[in-house]
């Protein structure tokens, strides 16, 4: 079922002439315009481009949070827009991890409860949840804050917990729309390092968008969008 390219890495996401139109008054905005791209497992890829270029729209389409005007999104070879809404939610739960720019965490739950929550939705038993939560907290270096509530954390800590939460469900890949936009340089760097560490150690696939040149520099692949079209797609060996 999985599509295979060279060096035996499977393609986990593929888009086909992906278009999303928005009506802005009378004019039509092509937020994404015939986007064709593939993401293979293990990638650490950034989507970059000026404001309004369609980064968020693209990530939302890939994550099944929005429906395309035309074109298709395949995840694991499956056209996700063929799924019914309920199936799609379930598909997201089991296959896609999300990190958002703000309010990622459920405010009333503690750090460990937030991480555990998504596994609870998946129906994982308590013992396994606790084990994985502890593991993830260790990985992001926040074991000591397990019982804290989100409001007591710094922006950077919150985003790291969000990454751990996204990872907890063992997704195929993680989508992160501007995960560092609300962070200062140092926190952004720590977050990126955490993500890189997870990418290297746990082979987690990341697809994230960013404005920040320092964040871009860490990416192994840069997809540049302009007016909804891919204008550059470069891979780096770092």
């Amino acid at each position, binding site marked *: 079922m999985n599509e295979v390219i060279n060096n035996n890495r499977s393609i986990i996401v593929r888009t086909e002439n992906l278009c999303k139109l928005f009506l802005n008054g009378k004019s039509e905005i092509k937020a994404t315009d015939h986007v064709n791209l593939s993401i293979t497992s293990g990638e650490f890829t950034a989507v970059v481009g000026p404001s309004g270029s369609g980064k*968020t729209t693209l990530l*939302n389409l890939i*994550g099944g*949070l*929005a429906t395309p005007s035309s074109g298709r999104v395949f995840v694991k070879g499956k056209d996700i827009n063929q799924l019914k*809404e*309920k199936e799609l*939610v*379930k598909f*997201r*739960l*089991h296959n*896609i*991890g*999300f990190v*958002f720019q*703000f*309010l*990622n965490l*459920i*405010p*009333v*739950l503690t750090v460990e409860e937030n991480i555990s*929550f*998504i596994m609870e*939705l*998946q129906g994982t038993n308590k013992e396994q949840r606790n084990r994985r939560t502890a593991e993830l907290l260790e990985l992001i270096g926040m074991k000591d804050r397990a019982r804290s*509530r989100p409001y007591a954390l710094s922006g950077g800590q919150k985003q790291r917990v969000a990454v751990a*939460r*996204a990872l907890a*469900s063992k997704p195929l890949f993680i989508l992160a729309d501007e995960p560092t936009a609300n962070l200062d340089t140092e926190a952004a760097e720590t977050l990126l390092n955490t993500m890189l560490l997870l990418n290297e150690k746990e082979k987690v696939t990341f697809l994230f968008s960013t404005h920040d040149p320092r964040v871009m520099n860490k990416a192994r692949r840069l997809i540049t969008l302009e007016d909804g079209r891919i204008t550059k797609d470069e891979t780096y060996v770092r």
Partner: protein
Amino acid sequence: MIKLAWLNLQRNPYRAMSIVSSVFIAAFFCILFGSFKKGVLNSSADSILKISGGHIEIRSKSYSQTRSIDDIMCIDSAILDSISILPHVKRVLPTLRAYALISHSSSSSSRAVVLVGIDPESEKDRIRMVSEMVEGEWFSEFDRGVIIGENMRNLLNIGIGDTIAVMGVGYHGVSAVGLFPVQGVIGLPVATVDINSMFMTLSAAQELFQADDCYSEIYIMSDKLDKVEVIESFIQSDFSSDEYEIRDWKLLIDEHLVYFRITDAIGFIVMFFLYLLVGSNILGAVILMTKERKLEFSVLVSIGMPRDKLSRTMFYELIMVAFVGLILAVIVSLPIVYYFSNNPIPLYGEAAETLKKFFIYAEIYLSFDLSLFIEQFLIVFCICLAVIAYPVIIIQRLKVDEGLSKRES
């Protein structure tokens, strides 16, 4: 998911506050108004009882059918005395009521009225409780004058000191004719009674109709509504059911049912608008909360929380919030209602005067009734249930990409 709902409340009580307070206000005012509405009805019932006699009415069976003075009952005064000393009997009020024609020199026509002979001492408090002397003096024991209603005075255009000629038929066919000076004018709260009734002392009436020791009705007032049945059972031996008809307040009130229906209908309409008002208040608070949490909902659905599950969580959460508000309202309103069920609501100034003119009651007590609390509790709870549909619908229809975007917030 109940756990998450509970945590939402327990760990973030401030967020729930606006909904709690709107539910509280709703339940509080609904309970208060419900008690008021019921209290008005009860107070009216009380006033009607006071104006019409008492909690128990005794008549001879034939009189209740014919209303003829020939069928009134004649009873040894010792029996009346023995009733008056029964426990929980506050007062025994013998009455002699008969139709008569009256005329006055200022008008050429004569007019049919109900002549009511009453015991001046015992009736003094009863009638004065629901009405006021407009002019003149209340009876003293041997007075031979009459007291008329305000409306009748205006109709006949007569005043204190004027003499009224009364013509009627007395007991067993004797003629009952006499001249009586008007000694007082009274404002009675029931317009029909006010315009048709003329009062005189019981002894004057018995003399006029030549019916010593005879009464058309005997009323018994109790100091407690729920002891009426006990009194009833006591007097059954003196007044056999073959000869006498004993009716208690529940039956008596039936005659005024139209009045109650109207009062009830007005109360119902006011209640309806009250529900509408408090319902939209709760809805407003819930809409606000839903708006505030749209981003949170979007995140939850995005990461894979099924909408049904999220809806259920919100449902549980709001049910709990509603319960907190409802229980608080009951706790707070309980002593208030209790207090005003024992102390009348003070009415001051012009408003009070107007109220007294238009309504039958002079004093309003709130009704302290457990079933009323339960009723209002359930109604407001149902309103809450209806309101909870809003976030549930929003969650089902939520477009997560819009919910997540900065554009919205």
